[in-house]
């Protein structure tokens, strides 16, 4: 009686992968197909185990290096006064930035009803949570006395003293802990219905119990859906200003000081744009392999890629503009110290870092003006790696040259990280990917129910289905 024959799992990926009006995912026929194909991604593979092993190994190295640093003192890292902040703070800002794209895609684009987010937002949101978890380690890790980090938290104590609330570092503590909590909650709320689906498909009784616990006994009742929608909407509404505030606050760490090159009013927007830019880079780095190896090309379609690439291009242009404005202000402001600093950044001591930054973040992304490249996953993936590199160096270029070339010429210096810095940097990637790998094989990387929402429901023969209006 149905006009369309139920599609077989085999031919699904081979369908023409282009957008049809009012039908974003033409290759998805019905709800069962969604369940089948998404659940299929959860089966662990050899390659996955191998990657997990590598991630854990890197993490181990990082932990070892940190223990050594705690025992010996921060001297084992490559600090070279007055460069008192180095790889750790750079990496901290880097990971915080990564997080932002996730929230942008999952929350802001949700509010803007941008359809292309549907299939990638779960991945991006998970990336956010793990990136912030990683970033959160670094402020503690770079302390001279890390075992005292809790003194930055306002808690009643027998000394009667409290944190100094005028310090940007205390702002950080609040901003980041809030950001972590809210995005973790946001991710988990979104997951509940999907976990319920997993629960219902699960055969293994132990796993079933765990999934039941995690799904909170969700049963897809219309009442649950109603409140769910509200809560989801408000969380999205909160996350939107939050994501803007968090990186602004991080930028205050620099803008509030009077270090040349840090003391700029442009920093808040500049950092937020940069954060989203770097985040898009990481999204592509992650989503493109997943799309390929999990056979999700007909979920994460080229249209999705295209839209993402446009967003990347846009943020890249914003960031590039910010770079140029910085130079303009330095020239126009005519403060000798600032001018010295920017000259030194571009043509002096740090030219190499600055040019890596400019190439990766300003020049290469211009290729995305070409639609062919925007729709070419391979190129997008390579470009995304360059973007990650470039954004790490952006933070390097902001932090190190400023400190090494300050007001006091007598105290000008250089900066060379040591093996400890690099090990801990590597360890942070290990930590991030460990969590991410565990995530993608235990929970659906594509939001099952949200995909079902945009798949046309079955209707009785003869009737037009009621969806879409």
């Amino acid at each position, binding site marked *: 009686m149905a006009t369309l024959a139920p599609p077989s799992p085999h031919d699904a990926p081979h369908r023409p992968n282009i957008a049809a009006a009012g039908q974003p995912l033409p290759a998805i026929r*019905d*709800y069962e197909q969604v*369940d089948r194909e998404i659940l299929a991604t959860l089966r662990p593979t050899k390659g996955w185990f191998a990657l997990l092993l590598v991630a854990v190994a890197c993490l181990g190295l990082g932990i070892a290096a940190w223990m050594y640093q705690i025992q010996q003192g921060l001297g084992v890292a490559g600090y070279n006064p007055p460069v008192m902040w180095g790889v750790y703070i750079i990496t901290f800002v880097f990971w915080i930035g990564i997080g932002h794209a996730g929230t942008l895609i999952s929350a802001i684009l949700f509010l803007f009803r941008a359809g292309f987010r549907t299939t990638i937002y779960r991945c991006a949101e998970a990336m956010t949570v793990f990136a912030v978890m990683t970033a959160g380690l670094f402020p503690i890790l770079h302390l001279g006395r890390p075992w005292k980090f809790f003194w930055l938290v*306002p808690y009643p104590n027998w000394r*009667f003293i*409290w944190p*100094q*609330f*005028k310090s940007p570092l205390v*702002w950080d503590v*609040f*901003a980041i*802990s*809030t950001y972590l*909590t*809210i995005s973790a*909650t*946001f991710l988990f*709320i979104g997951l*509940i*219905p999907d976990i*319920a*689906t997993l*629960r*219902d*498909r699960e055969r293994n009784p132990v796993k079933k119990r765990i999934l039941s616990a995690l799904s*909170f*006994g*969700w*049963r*897809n*009742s*219309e*009442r*649950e*859906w*109603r*409140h*769910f*929608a*509200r*809560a989801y909407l*408000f*969380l999205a509404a*909160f996350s939107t*200003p*939050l994501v803007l*505030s968090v990186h602004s*606050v991080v930028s205050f760490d620099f803008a509030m000081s009077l270090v040349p090159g840090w003391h700029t009013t442009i920093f808040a927007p500049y950092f937020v744009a940069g954060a989203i830019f770097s985040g898009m880079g990481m999204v592509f780095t992650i989503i493109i392999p997943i799309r390929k190896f999990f056979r999700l090309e007909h979920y994460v379609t080229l249209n999705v890629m295209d839209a993402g690439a446009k967003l990347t291009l846009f943020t890249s242009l914003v960031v590039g503009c910010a770079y140029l404005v910085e130079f303009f202000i330095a020239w126009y402001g005519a403060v000798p110290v600032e001018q010295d600093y920017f000259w030194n950044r571009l043509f002096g001591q740090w030219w190499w870092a600055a040019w890596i930054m400019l190439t990766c973040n300003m020049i290469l992304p211009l290729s995305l003006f070409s639609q062919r490249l925007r729709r070419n996953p391979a190129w997008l993936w390579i470009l995304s790696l360059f973007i990650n590199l470039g954004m790490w160096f952006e933070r390097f270029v902001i932090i190190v040259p400023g400190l090494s070339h300050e007001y006091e010429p007598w105290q000008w210096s250089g900066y060379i990280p040591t093996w400890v810095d690099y090990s801990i940097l590597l360890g942070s990637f290990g930590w991030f990917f460990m969590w991410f790998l565990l995530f993608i094989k235990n929970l659906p990387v594509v939001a099952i*129910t949200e995909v*079902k*929402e945009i*798949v046309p*429901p*079955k*209707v*009785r023969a003869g*009737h037009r*289905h*009621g969806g879409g209006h």
Partner: protein
Amino acid sequence: MMQGMLGAFREIDAAVAAIEDLKERKVGAITVFTPAPRHEFEHALKPPRSPVRRYTLIGALSGAVFGYWIAIWASESWPLVVGGKAVSTWVPYTIFSFELMVLIGGLSTVAGFFIHARIPRVTMTVGYDPRFSAGHYGVWVQCAPEKLRDAEAILRRYGAEEVRGAE
């Protein structure tokens, strides 16, 4: 004493039609299970607006106030001057106000959602079926014993794939 009739539909418009009919005849309380939120059901059931927003508002306001309070009170409790600034300066303290507004607002929203969605629930109530998280729409009519027949009849009429009563 819980009694009712459960119908599992493959097609959404069938389910919607059945619901409308059941409502018309006042057969009993209707619960709909759907794999994905569809506004067709909302049109059919016309439920009240979700009160979660109130939790959000209250949480957000109290968070904002607490943010200012903790910062100002702590600064004044041991007044030390830093960088020639006032002991408590409201401008930077706005950051704490904002962050705590978001934090507490967000968490209370979740609380509201849990409370009103009646989760976490410890046991699956009768009438649920794993299919409802896959491709089927479920309509569960809870009604008095004498009305069970009508309910079954209606569900069948609108082409429920399966109709079963439950104790």
